[in-house]
Structure formats: C-alpha cells, structure tokens
C-alpha cells in the first residue's frame, strides 16, 4: 500500500477491483465504511461475482475475469477524451512530457522487438530519447511524447470495445468511468484497493500498473485518501518481501547478482542510477551503502574491502529467478533433492496439484516447519480420493518440525500499510513446539559443526556467518531486530573532525541516512533502518496520538521508510508546494522547508519546483511509460488469460501473455473453450484464511464444506441444484463439490458469446476440522505472470456436471 488502512477514511471514491476487501480484509474495509459514513464517499466494485464488497457498494459492474486491463484502459481513454485529467499533476510529476525513442511502436497486440521463439522482447526502443546533456528530452506536445503515445495506445479501448471484451454492459462501464473521472479534480481523490484478483494473472503486474497509470493521470498518488493499495494476503508477507526472502532479492529490494556480474564493480555498474533529469535525487545512488551494510550484517568481520565485502559469498543467478513455479518444475524433472517448507503449504497453494505431488515424490528429503499439520507434510499419505497416492512408492524422507504460532512468539510483523508492529508472546507452546528462529539457528549450528568437522564444498559463507548472539542456539527477537536496523561496526567520526566520534562502535544507527559503503556500518535491511535505534524499539510504540485526525498515527508502531506513512507524499502539494486540497493537507512548503503531518519523501529542504516527488526513479517523476522495466510492455495491453472463453479480439493470434514463461509440457496442458466452455475463477471466503482456519473449529463451523458457485442460468442448463453435488474438471484435474446456485453470478456477453462463470473458493484440503475437500489448484494452469511469476489462478477454463454425492 502506498497509503495506510487508516488513511482510506480520507477518500471520496473507493474502487475495489481485483480484490474483495470486505471479505478478505474486513477490518481494513472498515475504513471504507467510515469514508462512506463520514465523508459521503462512494464505493464501486467491479468483479465477476457480486461479492460481499458489492453488497455494500454504491455501484457494482460485472466484468469477465482477466480483462481488467481493457476495462482500465477504457477508463483512461474516457478520462482523456473528456479531459478529466489532473493536468498540473501529470505535467509536473509524471513522465508524460518525455520523448520516447524513434522506432518504438505497438501493432497487432505486440510492442516493437518481439521474438516469438524466445517469448521475449528486445526492449532497446522502449526508452527515452536523451539530449546531449544526458538528460531526457521533454515536450508533451511532441508526437512521440509519452502522453501522445499513451493517448493513442488507449484510444482503441472504447466503451463498445470494453463491453465486447469484458462483458461489462456499456451503460455500467460508462457510469463507472464517469464516477472515476470526477476524481481528476485536485479536491477529489480516489483509492484503489486490490489484491490477488489482479496479481494472479499471466499479466498481473500490468493489471496493477494500469490502475497506477490511471491514478497518476487523476493525480491521486501521494495524497491522503488516494494511492495504490495492495491488500497483502498474509500477516507478514510484506515483511518477508521487504526482507528479500525471494530468489532474486536481497533485503530492502536490493537484488541478487546474476552470473554475468562476476565482481562487485560490475554488479554496481548497473545499479548506479544516474539522474535522468536535472537536480533529481535518484535515491538508488546510495545502493552501495545499503549493499555493503547488508554484507557486513551477514558476514561481519569476514566482509572486508579486500574481499569486496564477501561478494563471492553470495550465490549468483543463472536464470531470472528460482520462483516457486520454476522450482517445482525442476523438482518435477528430478533436479531438486531437498526442499524446506516453513509455514507454507504448497501442495494446496501452488498450481496443478497432480504435478506437485509428482514433483514432491521425486525429492530425497522434505522438511516442513509448521504449527499445523499440513497437507504438504502428508503428501505421501493416502486420503482416498482427496489424496490418492501409493505411500509405498514414494521414497521421499519427510521431517516435520513443530513450530510455535503467533501467540507464543515475540517480534514484529509488517502490515500492508508498511507498519512494523511489535507483538509479545502470551502462551506456552504446546508439546515440544519451538520458535522458527530457534530451529533455523539449530540447523545453522549443526551444519556449521559438520563443516568444521568434515570440511566440504565452499564452507566460508556458513562458517563465517555472523552469529554473535548471546545464545547462538536461540537468538532473541530483540537481537535480530537490532541487527536488521543496523549498527556501527567501528567508531564513526565526524568527517570534519576525526577526533569527534559521532557514532560509537556497537551503537544502533538512527536511520539509513547514516549507512556507509566502507564497511563501518552493518544493516540487515536498509528500509527497516530506524525501526530499532538508540531511541529504542520504535516498532513497539503504542501512542494513539493522531494530530488533526489525519489517520497517520505517526507514533503508533513504525512505518518504513523512516516512519513515512504515505509514500510519494510530496505529490500531495502542487509544483509550488501548496497542497492540492486544503481540507486534506499532508505536506506543504513553508518557504524554507517541507512541513506537515508526515515525514517528507524528499529532503526537507529540497525546493518544490526543482526536485520531483518520485525520488526512487532517476527521473524524479512517476512513469506512465515504464521503459524496459517490464517484460511485457512499457504500456499495459489487453491479453486474454491462457485459458480464455473467447479469443483476443484485438490480436486473435495471441494466446495469453506473449512473454509469459511456459514450461515444456505445460502448454499442452492448457484447455480450450471448445472442450472446457466455462470461465472459472478462484478466491477466498471471508470465513476462512487460506488453509489455516480449516484447522480451527469456529471457522470450520461457518464454512464447513467445499463448494463451487454458479449462476442460475448455468445451473438450469446443467440440471444442477443448490446443495447438490457437482464435478468440475479442467485439463489438469477434477474436483467434486457442493453447488451453490446464486443470482450473484450472471452470465456475461463477450464478443457475442455467452460466458458462464464458475467460482471456486480455495479453503479445503484433507487435514483439519472442516469436511475433506479439494482446492482450485487441482484445476489451475501452470503458468505465471510474465514479470513476477504469480500463478494464473484467477482465470481458467473448466467444465461442470451434476453428479450424485460421494458414497461415503
């Protein structure tokens, strides 16, 4: 989220699209109801299903899953055509005026440079035209300005085209577009609340970008009540991502080197981020400080200038990422021997269950750390039709380690709004359950002992890992949190007076502003720097003070970066530093510095008309055109899901996202609309949380049994009755479920074809208190988003029939 949950109360219009906040995040959704009740805000829900969010919406419009880009580009087209643009914002704070290289183009659904064999683009033309001074040329009226290219790009998405692609009736689309366009006024703002309804597509990243672009032309980024608000799923998935627990990341969104970057110098050469416009901050210029401090936190005194701060200790990537889809693909090929699942149940949460079971069966060992008895830890156990396996033929050794749960553990979690909140342990762990940090330490120490005793493959990174905790077998949360914040590894002196120590060795750094690239500071995660400094554990702050009731709560817990509550907050004021909306002031220029309710996103003394608000970009502005940063295009374009009920009307030859990665064998496992006529989607229900709450009694009482939802029309056609049993199958698998027949799902008319929708919630498995059941991952295709490989769970094809119930 660019803003926070509590900031939503400041909005005038909430658009829930690609998510279902009322069901998945009820307590966050309260701020929508507050905005409605106290500001007269309106709520729009655009969804294939009439959800519980829609139940309290002012306006609901149906849409076919996987066509959000067409819808949103249609809205942009409407705004541009009707001059509903926050021009001052667009001209000052976005790259709209910049000129793009000659040769860039878009035709037949493809951008310049497509290589069909590689399923990839040569992106050399997707960039700015630079002037002789090395800066980007800027002229909004130029035919190749970002604005003019964008205007042309979106012009095809007329209301008629939107109806044809999305199935949204034209009048409903126009009503939504009109309501949204009103927020181009500087004194009206809109917030976008989205979640996996946008990410779980083969073009998930572009779905989100598309709304971000719309928000930029409406001037809604960086303002109170605006923003792009990703409703993260899990309690600390934001934290784990921030801390870089991903294949290609280091903490704080630094990146793992690839194998072409053999040395630190080469690695740094592509991460210098020289400003592209005059006077811009281009904050990533500090990259090396963060990187070196990270290396010091990892390997302490073993990371020295002489060994390039242990650069070689880091593994180097040979592919863009070893994401979960690639790893299961490799496992399926027999190329993975060992796998750890820490609080993760991939047997139910990764796509194509059949393939997953086959893959896990090829492992030599599987280690599962979890507070609950997961299906993954029991993938080898026969549970009848719910897990039909032959245990005897599975040679995987499985080790299940009991862990504590939240109630028994202390530490911080990062919420969707980037707040790091500390919590305390209140219960004794059951049985012999242990903290995850204890388990990880034990594994490390035992592995280290084996290497010390026996030697072995390159053991330095293990032997020299900085593990100086009071009890190395069990580091405390405080010790770890202090390490993440960062500290001085040596006395740091005043650059003007070498005798004056400004930060003594061992002291906590105040924030990332003092991190250094010479090895004198260590910091686990630079964006978390400031969370636990010499002022104490800021994450444990509990003051409910909220000056002028802005919803910022600046002294409740701690927000990254540097306790900033709204990202890009400088954009809340115009080019002269005057707030766009006096009733919703956030920051303003008082003549000499920035002041207001939040920590400014730029140097407090950076002049408003000189330094742009988007300091992480070398341009200092936000990007309507992303240059080469996204694999599937600098602008979003409509692509159908890989399994779509209709062909792509704009580019009939293209199936799915043309650059999404498809592994050998998986393409053949995609079904087509002839064989599988119904458009399925998967989702959560408010009564459950993924595959956890089926272990908890009361949630199991509230939704006891796996079901699928269909509309009355399809039910009638197929002779299906509510409460009866159905079989749903795709090219990859088949499930049995109870049927819920509802008015809330209606068939859509897309390109002259009636599209029926089948809704498949995801909470059932074969462990826990609920009735045994299946999940949508028995059906879903093995393909991910072109940029970040999030599996396409939200749009796929199935067939359905009525059956008699299971005999059991």
């Amino acid at each position, binding site marked *: 989220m660019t803003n926070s949950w509590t900031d939503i109360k400041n909005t005038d219009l909430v658009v829930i699209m690609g998510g279902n906040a009322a069901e998945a995040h009820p307590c966050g959704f309260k701020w929508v109801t507050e905005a409605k009740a106290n500001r007269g805000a309106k709520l729009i829900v655009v969804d294939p299903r009439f959800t519980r969010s829609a139940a309290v919406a002012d306006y609901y419009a149906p849409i076919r899953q996987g066509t959000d880009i067409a819808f949103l580009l249609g809205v942009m087209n409407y705004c541009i055509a009707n001059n509903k643009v926050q021009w001052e914002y667009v001209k000052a704070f976005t790259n709209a005026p910049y000129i793009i290289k000659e040769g860039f183009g878009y035709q037949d659904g493809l951008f310049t440079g497509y290589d069909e064999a590689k399923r990839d683009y040569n992106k050399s033309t997707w960039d700015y035209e630079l002037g002789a001074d090395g800066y980007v040329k800027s002229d909004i009226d130029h035919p190749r300005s970002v604005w003019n290219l964008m205007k042309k790009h979106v012009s095809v998405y007329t209301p008629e085209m939107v109806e044809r692609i999305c199935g949204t009736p034209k009048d409903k689309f126009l009503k939504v577009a009109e309501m949204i366009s009103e927020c181009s006024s500087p004194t009206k703002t809109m917030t976008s609340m989205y979640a996996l309804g946008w990410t779980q597509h083969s073009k998930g990243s572009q779905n989100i970008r598309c709304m971000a672009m719309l928000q930029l032309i409406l001037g809604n980024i960086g303002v109170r009540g605006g923003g792009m608000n990703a409703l993260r799923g899990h309690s600390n998935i934001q934290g784990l991502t921030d801390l870089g627990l991903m294949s290609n990341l280091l903490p704080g969104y630094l990146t793992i080197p690839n194998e072409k970057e053999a040395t630190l110098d080469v690695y740094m050469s592509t991460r210098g981020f020289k400003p592209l416009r005059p006077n811009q901050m281009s904050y990533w210029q500090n990259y090396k400080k963060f990187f070196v401090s990270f290396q010091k936190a990892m390997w302490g005194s073993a990371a020295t200038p002489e060994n390039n701060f242990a650069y070689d200790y880091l593994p180097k990537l040979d592919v863009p990422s*070893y994401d979960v889809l690639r790893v299961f693909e490799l496992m399926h090929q027999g190329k993975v021997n060992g796998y750890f699942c820490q609080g993760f149940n991939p047997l139910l949460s990764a796509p194509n269950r059949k393939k997953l079971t086959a893959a896990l069966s090829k492992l030599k060992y599987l280690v599962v750390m979890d507070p609950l008895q997961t299906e993954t830890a029991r993938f080898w156990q026969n549970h009848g039709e719910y897990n039909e396996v032959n245990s005897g033929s599975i040679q995987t050794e499985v080790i299940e380690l009991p862990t504590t749960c939240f109630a028994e553990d202390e530490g911080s979690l990062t919420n969707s709004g980037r707040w790091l909140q500390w919590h305390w342990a209140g219960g004794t762990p059951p049985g012999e359950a242990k903290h995850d940090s204890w388990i990880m330490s034990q594994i490390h120490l035992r592995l280290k002992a084996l290497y010390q005793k026996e030697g072995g*493959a390159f053991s330095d990174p293990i032997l020299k890992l900085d593990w100086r905790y009071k009890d190395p077998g069990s580091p405390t949360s405080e010790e770890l949190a202090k390490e993440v914040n960062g500290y001085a590894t040596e006395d740091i002196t005043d650059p003007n007076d070498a005798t004056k120590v400004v930060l003594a060795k061992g002291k906590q750094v105040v924030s990332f502003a003092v991190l250094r690239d010479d090895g004198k500071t260590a910091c686990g995660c630079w964006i978390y720097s400031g969370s636990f400094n010499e002022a104490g554990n800021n994450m444990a702050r509990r003051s409910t003070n909220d000056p002028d009731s802005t919803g910022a709560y600046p002294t409740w817990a701690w927000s990254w970066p540097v306790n900033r509550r709204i990202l890009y907050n400088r954009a809340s004021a115009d080019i002269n530093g005057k707030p766009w909306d006096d009733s919703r002031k956030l920051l303003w220029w008082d003549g000499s510095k920035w002041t207001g309710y939040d920590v400014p996103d730029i140097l407090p003394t950076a002049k408003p008309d000189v330094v742009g608000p988007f300091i992480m970009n070398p341009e200092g502005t936000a990007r309507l055109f992303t240059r080469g940063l996204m694999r599937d295009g600098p602008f979003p374009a409509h692509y159908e899901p890989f399994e779509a009920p209709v062909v792509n009307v704009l580019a009939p030859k293209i199936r799915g996202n043309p650059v999404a990665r498809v592994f050998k064998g998986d393409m053949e496992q995609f079904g087509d609309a002839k064989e599988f006529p119904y458009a399925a989607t998967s989702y959560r229900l408010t009564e459950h949380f993924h595959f956890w709450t089926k272990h908890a009694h009361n949630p199991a009482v509230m939704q006891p049994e796996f079901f699928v939802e269909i509309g009355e029309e399809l039910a009638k056609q197929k002779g299906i009755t509510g409460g009866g049993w159905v079989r749903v199958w795709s090219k990859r698998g088949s499930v049995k479920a109870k049927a819920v027949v509802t008015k809330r799902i209606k068939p859509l008319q897309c390109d002259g074809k009636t599209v029926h929708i089948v809704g498949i919630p995801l909470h059932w498995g074969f462990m826990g208190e609920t009735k045994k059941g299946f999940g949508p991952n028995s059906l879903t295709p093995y393909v991910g988003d072109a940029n970040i490989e999030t599996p396409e769970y939200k749009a796929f094809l199935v067939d359905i029939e009525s059956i008699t119930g299971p005999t059991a």
Partner: protein
Amino acid sequence: MNMELSRRQFMKGASAGIAGTTLGALGFGDIEAAYASSIRPWKLANLTETRNTCTYCSVACGIIMYSKGDLKKGEKADIVHIEGDPDHPTNRGTLCPKGAALLDIVHAKTRTLYPQIRKPGSDKFERVSWDVALDRVARLMKDDRDKNFIAKNGDGVTVNRWLTTGFLAASATTNETAWATYKVVRSTGILAFDNQARV
C-alpha cells in the same frame, strides 16, 4: 513494553474520552452490586493480558490475549480468550470471523506437537527427538550441498550456488525470524528461495 504503560497511553489517547462518555452514558456508576443470578460471572477476572497481532491477513489487527498464568513471570501460560485491541488504530477492537476465532487455531486439535520423521516408502510418521530430527536435517543438507554445490559456472565465473535444495519461507513469522532465516538460507548458497507473496 509492558501492559501498564500501554494502558496508560490508551487512557491518554483521544479514544479514552469517547469510551468514557459512552460508559458514563450507560448509567453505570461506581456502585459495586452483586451479580444477578442470570448473569455469568466475569470470565476474564484475574487473567494476564498480552498484546499481539492477528496472524492472518496484513491488516494486522491488534489483539489482546487473555491467559491463565504469566509467561513473563516464567509461568506456564494457557491462553483462554482472545479479543480485539480497542487501542489499535486500524481495527479499534474489531476482528473478522477468522480473527475472532484465533483461540481455536492456538488450540487446534491438529497443531504439530513433536518432531516426526516419515521414512522413505513408509505410510506413517514416527516421533523422534529434536536432536535426531535436527541432526538428520543437517546431514541431509550437507550431503546434498557437498555433492551438488556449483562453485563456478561453465565460463569459470564464481557463482557459489546450491540449486538442488530449495526453501519456501513463511508468511506469518516475524521479521526477526525472517532475518534469521535469510541469513541461514543465503549462507548456504540456496537460490531456490521464495515466499508466499505470489499465492
């Protein structure tokens, strides 16, 4: 941070005034009357309160856990009730159906209690000690790493990666656990490292 402090902060906060007026308006004076026989005795009397955060979604609602026994005093603590934390700016004491049932996951019948190993081809888990389990994990890791570690790629570039073992990290552990996990996993050269952000 202890409870007393946070309670004082709450009382200073703006919400205290509101809560106070509501209470006052309900006409509850300070008289101490006997319970009526229809009314159940107060079930949270003399329990220990601990502040925590809901483990589910990323709204991160504040919760108060009520336990018999105080962990901080070194006692065994049994959580008997969980309720929203009214001080919390986001949830204001409210909880969703999952959060309201947090107690049921803490005491789920299907919690893992002991380390277990399932041998190849077996149809059951066998309980083992932590030492046996952890030594086994370390041994399996080392054998696989020593056998499959790639120090240099085909071009002779130092790559120091281990691709035959992967690690899927949690989504509800603390940042501190995540950091400890990061250190341990990366130090081995594992690249097949991912979390729940995608699904």
